[in-house]
């Protein structure tokens, strides 16, 4: 599975420009599902149909993971060929200093900064620029509106993995691996790879409307509390996938939460509960789609989120797959 994770995290896909990620995912999903389509906004919606199972009521289940990552977009090209930019999604200026970004055509830029008035001044995006090594403006091919993402190779550290864009390529990888391992299911399962989560859950909004599920689980990253002097949180890498109780955008459906925890207990899969003060996931948009959806979230505790070097625990990933497989194999007890 590490190879799959590497491929997905290293793919280029800022919000609105997820084509390369979607093509990679399509390749892995094809042949394992009964139907596959791409909707108007670019969400990839793949259906694995139910195989009836005695004593199990078949439900329509939506699993969602977002393909997009945060990035930057050129807002101005100056006379010397330096590129001013705006953020796509929640970009922390501190993470940009010293970073490199890559454009859709593969060209690389480094981030520069105006000389600060005070040495300890907090860096601001509007005082930074991208330097693509242009000698002058004439030979520059970049223009306003071009989009770039972080570039950083995946590193397998053994138990722990580091890469850019675990948020949420790890969710995509977990969905794909679950699909590969799932021989049959008594439910109609929609594996939905969404667009534009980082800019406002936009792909989830339209795909949930299209799928109209009974039950939904978003698979996404969450934060951690296990680094030195971290913001207090019980979330720990390696303690199992996290079952969301609440975040800033939603209260997880109590029945879905219990169904997930009960299934984890039954399978002997370690898990932790998640109460997140900031941030939210696609599940928030799905929950209030049409007449309402019973929605929950399975999260992977992640260090250094939205930085070019996020870190996760490989065991949490494998256990998330195991739990999802279990959830999709039996009755939905919500």
């Amino acid at each position, binding site marked *: 599975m590490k190879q799959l994770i590497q491929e997905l995290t290293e793919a280029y896909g800022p*919000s*609105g*420009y997820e*084509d390369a990620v*979607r093509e990679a995912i399509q390749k892995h999903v094809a042949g394992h599902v009964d139907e596959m389509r*791409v*909707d*108007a*906004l*670019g*969400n990839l919606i793949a259906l694995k149909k139910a195989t009836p199972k005695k004593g199990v009521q078949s439900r329509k289940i939506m699993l969602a993971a977002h393909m997009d990552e945060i990035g930057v*977009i*050129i*807002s*101005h090209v*100056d*006379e*010397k060929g330096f590129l*001013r930019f*705006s*953020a*796509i999604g929640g970009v922390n200026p501190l993470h940009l200093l010293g970073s490199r970004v890559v454009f859709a055509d593969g060209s690389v830029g480094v981030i520069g900064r105006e000389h600060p008035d005070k040495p300890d001044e907090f860096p601001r995006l*509007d005082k930074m620029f991208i330097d693509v090594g242009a000698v002058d403006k004439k030979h520059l091919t970049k*223009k*306003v*509106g071009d989009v770039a993402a972080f570039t950083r190779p995946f590193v397998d550290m053994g138990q722990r993995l580091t890469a850019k864009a675990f948020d949420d390529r790890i969710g995509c990888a977990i969905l794909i691996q679950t699909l590969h391992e799932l021989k049959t299911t008594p439910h109609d399962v929609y594996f939905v790879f969404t667009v*534009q989560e980082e*800019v*406002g859950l*936009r*792909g989830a*909004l*339209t*795909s949930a*409307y*299209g799928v109209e599920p009974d039950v939904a689980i978003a698979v996404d990253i969450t934060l951690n509390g296990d680094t030195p002097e971290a913001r207090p949180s019980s979330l720990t890498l390696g303690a199992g996938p996290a079952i969301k109780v609440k975040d800033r955008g939603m209260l997880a459906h109590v029945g879905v939460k219990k169904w997930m925890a009960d299934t984890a207990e039954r399978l002997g899969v370690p898990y932790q509960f998640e109460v997140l003060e900031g941030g939210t996931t696609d599940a928030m948009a799905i929950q209030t789609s049409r007449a309402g959806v019973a929605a929950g979230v399975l999260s992977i505790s992640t260090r250094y989120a939205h930085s070019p070097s996020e870190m996760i625990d490989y065991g949490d990933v494998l256990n998330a797959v195991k739990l999802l497989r279990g959830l999709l194999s039996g009755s939905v007890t919500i």
Partner: protein
Amino acid sequence: MLKELSEARGVSGDEKAVRQIILDAIKDTVDEHRVDALGNLIALKRGKALSKAKGSGKSRRKVMVAAHMDEIGLMIVQIEKEGSLRFRPVGGIDSRVLLAKKVLIGDDKVPGVIGSKAVHLLDARQRQQVARVEEMSIDIGASGKEEAERLVKPGDYATFDTAFNELGGELRAVKGKAFDDRAGCAVLIELLKESYPFDLYAAFTVQEEVGLRGARVAAYAIAPDIAFALEGTVCDDMPRTKDISPTTTVGLGPAITVMDRSIIIDPRLVNLLVKTAEENGIPYQFKQPGMGSTDAGAIHVTREGVPSAVVAVPARYIHSPVSLLSLNDLDNEVRLMHQTLLKVNDLDLTR
């Protein structure tokens, strides 16, 4: 047309006067029109001929073009015992532009002025401060509360009292209020005079300035395949010392949005607009990404999603009592949108 639209009064939630002007202007150019529950004016112009559909396999698309009728303004919230009127802004207004401005209140257009202390009376500290909307009041010259109550009631809307003027020159500059988004309304009215190879739904929307509310329900009802929002947008092409960009520049042509706070435009639609502009020699510019939001933000996430784009006329000083735009930009937006719409039915949107 722009003069009539600019001088019409239509703060969010009270767009009826603007709607009537538009209805009179378009009723002979469309096949059907209706006003929905929120007040959106939705007009249908049926496609005249089936285009030679390529790629999509669809014979005829539903294309929605939206422009919002509402403008920012004020609402009277309380009448004080001396007869002055407390108010709150409707939509985003910088309180620094309010003091000493002339306004018209309610359907009877009661004239008033936003009161401000004369400079003689301000101490040094007060001169450095920005007055808050909560501290301001409108003076209608009433002798007391009773007289004021006969003329105005809480809930009445106030608009800026700004005449439309042509400043002329090479830019063919005009000034007036509410170019955001009467400029878009004017462009859409022009576009309806032409015929198209698909069903064109023109949506003149309400309540954009308070949260894209009209566009949300209009798009739900229309369920379009593709949408465009036409706007009058932020422009700050003032003299500057640093080599950073203006959001847009007056006179450089219609501004194409790539991304704002509410939408990331489908790159295929951006490319179509750019290609069309270049093929027809129409000037264009990109709006600096990242700022503002438009009806397209609500439309593109409607139902199962709608690929949507935004094209805007740059207008200086919007969300204030007076704004300024170039009629050249307006004419070029009409040309760009007309040529683009002729091609939109054949745009391949499969992935």
